[in-house]
C-alpha cells in the first residue's frame, strides 16, 4: 500500500454540520515524524521489487524437484504434468512447483501475520494503543528495522502497528489470489511473489515480537538474558504440572500471572513446548522448556503434565486424543485451533473447572486468555492428585511381548521419515537387549507414523521412549532466554569486522526439529562455528536443540559461550517470530553501520547485504510452511539459506552455478566497470545431505564480494580447514575465491599458489560491489 493511501484527502466533505473544503487528515501519525527522505518502495506492492528478484533469480536459478507428478487443484484435473506436458489450464510443471512454493509461503506468512494480529489486539486491549514500543531502551533506536525498511514508517506505539498489519494482510490476499487457476503462469513470477511473501512475513514476525517485548517486558536486547532450564527432566513431577504448547503466548502469560498473584507459583510447574515455551521463559525465568516440537508425544505420554493448554501453530492435531490417554484435561485457547471443543469462553470459571475435574468433558475451548489462565491453574491443582501421573508409556514386559508377536512386515520402518530400523530393534528386545530400541530415540522425530502404520497397532514410539527412559530423565540443560533484538551499539561494534570479513560470518540456526539424525547436530554445528569466532544466532526449536548438549564439565553451549552479538557468541534471539531480529540485525548493519538509507529503500539495503554481509541461515530441521516463508524472507535480502536433507521436500532449490563465469559479475560502484567476483555466495537455497557437507558449505557461503583481503583470507582459512577435516581433502574451487594473492591464507601460501597456477588463475580487483546500476557513482 503506498503511503499516500494513509492520507485521506478530501476536496469537499459534506456533513450534517457543514461543508469542509480541502481537508487533509493524516491517519498515520507515524508517517510525518521521520526526517529521513522516503525511499522508492514504501509499502511495496506484489510487483514493485520484481526487478530485484529477477536479478537474484537469474543468478540463483530455481531447480525444481516435483513432489507430485500431477496437479489436482481444480476440477479440470488431475492433470499429468510429467515432462513437458501442460495441464488443462495451460500450466507447466515448473510453474506448478513454484505455485506450490508460493502457497506454502502464503500459509507461512498468513500464520505469522494472523498471530501478530491476534496478539496485538489482545495487547492493545490490555495495555492501550499508546503503549510505547520499547525493545531495548537507549541501546536500540532502530526499534523496527524491517518495518522501517519495507513500509517506510517508524512505529512508536502499539497502535501504529495496526496500520502495518493492514498492509500485510492485503499483501497476503493478493499473493494468494495469484495461485488461482488461470492467474500467474510464469514460474519466475511465482518465485518473485514467493520472495514477496517472505518479505511481508518478516514484517509480520517483527510486529508480533516487538509488540510482545514492549508489552510483556521480555528481555530487551539483553545479551545477559537469564539462563533457564530446558529438557524433559527439568520439570518436578511431584508438583502439579501445566504444559503449554504453541506460539501465541497470552494464555500462558495469564497462567503465570494467576500463579504469581495468588502466591501459588512455588507449588506448580509451568512447562512449555515449541515457541510458547520460549516466550514463557522470556516472561518468567522460572518457567521451563521441555523441548522442541518433536517432544510433544513423549512428554504428554509420560503423564507428567496434568493440564495441557494449547494455543496455535505446530500443535499436533491429535493432542486431545493424546491428552485423554493420560487423563489430562486440555484447554484450547485459539480460534484457529478449536479441536472440536465446546466454546466455554462465557461460562464462569468455577463451572468450567468443575467439569474438567469431574471428567465430564475432556477439554474446553476458552478464548479469553485470563479465564484460560485461571482455569488451567485451578484444574491442574485439582486434578494432579487424582491423576497420580497416569501415564501411557508401556512396561518393558509389554515391549517384549509385542516383539514376539511382531510380523517383521517393515510397515513401521517404511512409514518412518528417518527410515529407522524399528523391526530389528524390536526383535533385539526378545533377548533382553533394549539398547537398540533406545538408540533410535536419538534420531526419532516423535511423529508416531510408525504407530499408525503398524497392523498390530503397537505404540512403537512409546516403546522407544520407554527404552530410552534413563536418557530422558537426564535431559537437563540450560538455554539463554530469548534476548530479542540486537543492540545498535553491538551493530556499530561488529559492523566493520563483518563487512570487511574479519568476523568470518553470522550464522543463524533456525527453524523446526525435523532432523535427519537428531538435534545434537545443531549443537555440534553451533559450537564449532562459535569456537571459530563466527557470530552464532539461534531461534525457535533450533535454539532449543542447540542447548541439548553438554561438554565434559557438564556445561551446555549457552553456558560456554556468551549471549553477545559478537565473535564467539551464541545468541538466542527467541521464538519463531524473533527470527525478525536476525533479519533486523543484518539490515541494521547496512543502515546503522554503513549509514545506508533505510526508509522504503529495500533494493539498496538488500544489495548491500547480499554483497557485503557474510550471513547464512541454517534451517537444519525445517518442516513447516512458516519455515518456508522465513527462508524466503532471507532470500529476498540476498542471504543464503541451507536446509537439511528433509528440506529437499520444499521441492525447489535456488542454486548458483560456479562453473558459469558470466553469472558472477557485479558493478564496481566506483567506476561502473563490471568485475568478476567469483561465486560469492554460491547458492541462495540449498539442501545438504549431511551435517559435514553443511558445515563446509556454511563456511563457503559466508564469503562476499566486498571482503577485504584480510577478511577473505580468514574466511578461506575456515573453509579450507573444515574441508580438509570433514572431507579429508583440499577444496577444488579455491581459485574461484582468490582475487589477489593477498587473499591467500599465509600459512597455506605455497600449496595454494601451486593450485592457482594449475588452474590458470588470474589476478583481479576487489570492487565496491553492487548489482544495481543506479548506485554507480561515476560512469566508467
Amino acid at each position, binding site marked *: 500500500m503506498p503511503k499516500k493511501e494513509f492520507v485521506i484527502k478530501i476536496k469537499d466533505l459534506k456533513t450534517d454540520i457543514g461543508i469542509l473544503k480541502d481537508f487533509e487528515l493524516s491517519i498515520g501519525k507515524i508517517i510525518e515524524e521521520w526526517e529521513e527522505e522516503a525511499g522508492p518502495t514504501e509499502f511495496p506492492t506484489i510487483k514493485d521489487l520484481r526487478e530485484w528478484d529477477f536479478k537474484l533469480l537469474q543468478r540463483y536459478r530455481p531447480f525444481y524437484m*516435483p513432489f507430485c507428478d500431477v496437479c489436482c487443484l481444480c476440477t479440470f484435473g488431475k492433470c499429468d504434468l510429467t515432462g513437458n506436458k501442460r495441464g488443462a489450464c495451460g500450466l507447466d510443471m515448473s510453474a506448478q512447483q513454484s505455485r506450490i512454493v508460493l502457497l506454502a509461503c502464503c500459509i507461512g506468512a498468513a500464520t505469522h501475520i494472523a498471530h501478530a494480529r491476534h496478539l496485538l489486539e489482545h495487547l492493545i486491549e490490555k495495555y492501550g494503543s499508546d503503549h510505547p514500543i520499547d525493545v531495548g531502551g537507549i541501546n536500540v533506536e532502530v526499534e523496527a528495522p524491517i518495518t522501517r525498511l519495507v513500509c517506510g514508517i517508524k512505529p512508536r506505539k502499539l497502535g501504529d502497528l495496526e496500520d502495518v498489519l493492514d498492509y500485510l494482510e492485503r499483501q497476503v490476499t493478493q499473493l494468494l489470489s495469484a495461485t488461482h487457476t488461470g492467474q500467474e503462469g510464469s514460474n519466475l513470477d511465482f518465485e518473485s511473489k514467493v520472495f514477496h511473501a517472505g518479505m511481508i512475513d518478516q514484517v509480520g514476525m517483527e510486529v508480533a515480537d516487538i509488540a510482545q517485548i514492549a508489552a510483556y517486558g521480555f528481555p530487551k536486547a539483553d545479551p545477559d538474558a537469564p539462563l533457564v532450564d530446558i529438557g524433559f527432566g527439568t520439570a518436578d513431577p511431584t508438583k502439579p504440572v501445566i504444559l503449554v504448547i504453541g506460539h501465541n503466548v497470552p494464555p500462558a502469560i495469564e497462567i503465570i500471572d494467576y500463579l504469581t498473584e495468588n502466591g501459588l507459583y512455588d507449588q506448580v510447574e509451568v512447562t512449555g513446548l515449541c515457541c510458547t515455551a520460549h516466550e514463557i521463559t522470556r516472561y518468567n525465568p522460572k518457567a521451563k522448556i521441555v523441548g522442541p516440537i518433536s517432544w510433544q508425544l513423549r512428554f504428554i505420554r509420560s503423564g507428567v503434565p496434568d493440564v495441557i493448554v494449547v494455543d496455535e501453530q505446530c500443535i499436533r492435531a491429535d493432542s486431545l486424543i493424546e491428552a485423554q490417554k493420560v487423563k489430562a484435561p486440555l484447554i484450547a485457547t485459539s480460534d484457529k485451533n478449536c479441536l472440536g471443543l465446546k466454546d466455554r469462553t462465557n461460562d464462569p470459571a468455577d463451572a468450567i473447572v468443575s467439569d474438567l475435574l469431574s471428567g465430564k468433558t475432556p477439554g474446553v475451548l476458552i478464548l479469553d486468555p485470563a479465564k484460560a489462565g485461571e482455569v488451567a491453574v485451578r484444574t491442574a491443582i485439582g486434578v494432579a492428585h487424582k491423576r497420580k501421573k497416569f501415564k501411557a508409556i508401556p512396561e518393558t514386559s509389554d515391549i517384549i511381548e509385542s516383539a514376539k508377536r511382531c510380523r517383521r512386515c517393515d510397515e513401521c520402518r517404511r512409514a518412518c521419515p528417518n527410515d529407522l530400523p524399528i523391526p530389528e530393534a524390536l526383535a533385539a528386545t526378545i533377548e533382553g537387549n533394549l539398547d537398540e530400541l533406545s538408540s533410535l530415540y536419538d534420531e526419532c522425530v516423535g511423529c508416531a507414523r510408525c504407530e499408525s502404520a503398524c497392523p498390530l497397532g503397537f505404540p512403537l514410539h512409546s516403546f522407544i521412549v520407554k527404552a530410552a527412559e534413563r536418557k530422558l530423565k537426564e535431559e537437563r540443560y540450560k538455554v539463554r532466554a530469548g534476548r530479542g533484538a540486537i543492540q545498535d551499539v553491538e551493530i556499530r561494534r561488529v559492523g566493520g569486522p563483518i563487512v570487511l570479513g574479519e568476523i568470518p560470518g553470522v550464522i543463524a540456526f533456525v527453524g523446526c526439529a525435523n532432523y535427519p539424525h537428531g538435534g545434537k547436530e545443531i549443537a555440534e554445528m553451533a559450537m564449532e562455528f562459535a569456537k571459530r569466532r563466527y557470530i552464532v544466532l539461534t531461534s525457535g526449536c533450533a535454539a532449543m536443540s542447540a542447548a541439548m548438549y553438554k561438554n565434559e564439565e557438564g556445561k551446555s553451549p549457552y553456558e560456554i559461550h556468551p549471549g553477545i552479538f559478537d565473535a564467539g557468541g551464541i545468541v538466542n534471539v527467541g521464538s519463531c517470530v524473533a527470527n525478525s531480529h536476525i533479519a533486523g540485525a543484518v539490515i541494521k548493519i547496512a543502515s546503522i553501520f554503513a549509514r545506508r538509507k533505510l526508509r522504503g529503500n529495500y533494493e539498496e539495503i538488500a544489495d548491500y547485504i547480499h554483497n557485503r554481509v557474510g550471513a547464512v541461515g541454517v534451517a537444519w530441521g525445517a518442516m513447516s510452511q512458516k519455515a518456508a516463508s522465513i527462508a524466503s524472507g532471507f532470500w529476498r535480502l540476498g542471504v543464503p539459506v541451507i536446509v537439511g536433507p528433509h528440506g*529437499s521436500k520444499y521441492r525447489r532449490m535456488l542454486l548458483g552455478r560456479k562453473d558459469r563465469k558470466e553469472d558472477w559479475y557485479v558493478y564496481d560502484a566506483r567506476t561502473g566497470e563490471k568485475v568478476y567476483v567469483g561465486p560469492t555466495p554460491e547458492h541462495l537455497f540449498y*539442501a545438504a545431505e549431511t551435517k559435514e557437507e553443511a558445515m563446509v558449505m556454511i563456511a563457503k557461503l559466508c564469503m562476499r564480494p566486498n571482503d577485504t583481503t584480510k577478511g577473505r583470507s580468514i574466511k578461506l582459512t575456515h573453509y579450507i580447514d573444515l574441508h580438509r577435516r570433514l572431507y579429508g581433502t583440499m577444496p577444488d574451487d579455491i581459485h574461484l575465491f582468490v582475487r589477489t594473492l593477498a587473499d591467500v591464507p599465509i600459512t597455506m601460501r605455497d600449496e595454494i599458489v601451486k593450485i592457482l597456477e594449475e588452474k590458470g588463475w588470474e589476478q583481479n580487483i576487489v570492487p565496491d560491489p553492487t548489482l544495481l546500476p543506479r548506485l554507480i557513482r561515476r560512469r566508467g
Partner: protein
Amino acid sequence: MRMAKSTEPWMTAEIPGPKKALVITKPKVVSAIIRRAKRPLLIVGHEAVEIELKEGRLIDYMIRLAEAAEIPVVATAHIQGEFQRRGFKPASWMPAVDIANRLVDSEWMGLGDEGRHDLALFVGLPYYMGWLILSGLKHFSPDLKTVSLDMHYQPHASWSFPNLSIEEYEKNLRVILEELEGD
C-alpha cells in the same frame, strides 16, 4: 520377512505419478544399459559408506563398478575423502542437488567439458532425497536416462531395482560387477 511389494516405493507415502521406473528384473539389464551408454556418470551419496555388504561397504562395490566400466564418479556430501582413502579419485565432488542441477541444463557439457551425459546412475542418497532428485531429472532432463542402484524401488528413475533384501541386493551387485569386470 514380508517385504514391501517389489515395485512399491520403499517409503510408503512416496507415491509417484503416472510415469514410473522400469524394474530391473535381472542384473544383466544394468550392465547392458551401462555398456550402451556413451557418457555415463555414477553419483554416489554418503549412505554408500554406511551400508555393509559381504565384501566390504557399498562404496567399495561402487569403486569396482566405476573402475570396471570406466565411469566417472561424482561423490556427494562429504565422502570424497572416503574414496581417496581407498585409492580411488572421483572425477568430481559436489552436493547432490548441484550435480542434478547441472544435469537438467541442456547447455552443460558434462564433467570435464567432454559432452553431455546420457546416463546417470545414482546410489547412496537418503531415500527421500534421491526420490526428489530423480523426480527433478525425470521432469526436466528428458534425454537423460537414470538408474537407481539402491536396494529399494525408486519410482522416478528410468530403471530401478525392486525392493530387495540385503542379500539379494548384494548378489545383484556382484553379478553386475562380474559381468563388467569380465569385459
